[in-house]
Each structure stands twice: as C-alpha cells, then as structure tokens.
C-alpha cells in the first residue's frame, strides 16, 4: 500500500469544513490528529530513524 494512503480521507477530511469556517481546530482535535500521524508512522518522514523520524528518503 502507498504510505499515507487513506490517512487524509479518514483523519483530515472530517475536519476540513470546521477549519475553514472557524480558522481554528479545538486542541482535542489537533491532538487526535497528532496521535493518528504517529499511529500511521507518518511523523517526520524526512528525518532519520535515529532521531525519531521515519527514515524515508526526502525525495
């Protein structure tokens, strides 16, 4: 499967309209997104595993 496939649909799309209307998301939502990013191993894809990134090439 492509890395990140389905992530936007499941974890980002549901917040799009609220963000556009309020120009803000509640902190609980922000934290839930951050946790989902970690769960999908999408955090810091551009940095080395040694430093807590995913060690994917930056290109």
């Amino acid at each position: 499967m492509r890395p990140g496939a389905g992530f936007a649909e499941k974890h980002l799309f549901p917040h799009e309209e609220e963000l556009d209307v309020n120009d803000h998301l509640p902190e609980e939502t922000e934290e839930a997104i951050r946790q989902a990013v970690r769960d999908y191993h999408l955090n810091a894809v551009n940095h080395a595993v040694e430093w807590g990134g995913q060690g994917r090439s930056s290109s």
Partner: protein
Amino acid sequence: MIVNEEVAKATGALWGRVWLPPMCLKDGTREQKEEILRPACAGKVFVAFCTSEPGAGSDAGGVRTSAVLRGNHWVVNGEKCFASFSEGADLALLTTIVDSDPKKPTLLIINPKTKGYNIKRLPSFMQRSGHGHPEVDIRDIKVPADAMLGEVGQGFELTKDWFVEARLAIAARSIGMAIRATELAEAYAAKRVQFGRPIGDFQAIEFMITEMAADIMTGKSMLYRVCAEIDGGLDRKHAHAKASATKWYCSEAGWRVVDKALQIFGERGAMCENPVERLHRDVRLERICEGTSEIQKVIIGGHIRKRGLDVYTGWS
C-alpha cells in the same frame, strides 16, 4: 513525496499537521539534535522558519535582521513576515546577518516567546489553515551564543538541501490536490444533467477532464523521475536545477487542473462547502511559496546558462 501527495488532498493546509521538521536540523550538533530534532520528530516541538522580511521576499539575500555577539549572547534586531505559525511555535530558525554583513547569513535558534519577539500583526490570508503568517518586530532579543545552527556565514548554505526537499514537496502536494479535484469533477460531470444529458457527455467537459488527466500524468511522471534520480545519487547542483523545474511545472499544472475542476462544477464549484473551492485557494499559494514561479524560471535559466540545456533535455 508519496506521503506529501496523499495528505495534500486535505484542504486548509491540513497536510501541515503531518509534520516535517526543517531538514537543516540534521546539520545541528549532537546536543541540538537531542534537544530539538528528536522532540520535533515526535511532534512535541514545532519549529517555524523565519526568513522573509518586508524587504526580503524573493530576494532572500536582502535579509537585514542583524545579530551581534555581545559576550555569550547574540543581540538580534530586525523585522520578519510570513513566518508560518511562528506565533504558536516552540522554536524558530531565524535567518540573520551577523554584524549587519550580508556575507555572513547565519541561522539562529530562538524561542518566539522570548521578550522582544513582538507579533505586530496577524493578517488574514485566503487559506484558512488555523495557522498565521505574522508580521514580527524583533527588538534586542538575547540569544545564547551557541543557539546557532552551523557556523556564522552558513545560513543560506544550510537551507539549500532543504529547498530541494521543500520544492519537491510542493510539487507533490500540487499533484495530490489536482488528483482530488479531478476525481470530484469527473464524478460530478457524470451525474449533473443539463440539456437532457450528463454534462460529462459534452466534449467541452470531456476535453477538460482529459487535459486535467494529462497534466497530472506529466507532473507526476516528472516528480517521481526526479525523486528517483536524487535517490540514485544525483549531485546537489543538478538536484537543485531539477527541483526548480518540477516545482514550477507541478504547481502551475495543479493550478490549471483545479481551476478547470471548479469550472466543471459551475456555481457549485464556488461554494466554500465544496472541497474544490478550498483546493482552489490552497493550490494558488503553491505558485508563490518557496520561490515564486517567476523565480523558479530565473533559476532554471541560470542552470541552462551555466550547465547547458542538457540538464533538462539530455536524458533517456
């Protein structure tokens, strides 16, 4: 880049919630990597990047924010603008010139909550991302002498690799946005009936969709080819040259595609509840940030003059 393409389908720059700490943090000391890069990778510290100034936009060499070493502290004075989310960031990489000498561009690591980092204004922008692009007045900020990334004078050098990554990321995001807009427009064209037929049956609409598909295919082919070349060891100068062309092409193509998608939706394409309307606002900015389309062409022209057309045309 595949991750960038996927997450950029979400509007309002929600892709930014899938954090990519500044690439140049990898050039910090071991202590800086422990203290900043590790928590940044974990999503516990957000690091903003402040280069742009009222007099230094496309011309980053026009940075005038100055840093002067006094004992064991830098004293920093100047103005910044457009630094995304520096109003809420834990840390910021600040481009300065040491001793007011433009030949000594230097990156300092500051805490934007420090006394003297004054947010003057948080203007509204067309993209509603929940993050601002503040105008900042910097007055006599004291920064520890060792809160510097690299050496004095290395400021622009350290960000060069990052430019390649950032420009390719913009290309990938533009393609992701274009794909979502095209999928939505194609589905709409199949069900919207006018003159007794789905509008997708009209060749004018079908041709728009074919142009959108071909623009995406071209941009995507270019992007992943350049990425493969870089992963295969392409040298830094050629990577820089090709990243500029890719950023230029994909951001312009993304804009063309999303604009056609909006046209296919008619008035419904202008409703803010329609993702295509929001993608239209989002993709427009990709032609400006990390070097405008005009600046990418200046860079491409420079590479052609120095290295010959072959950089862009001589491959099989």
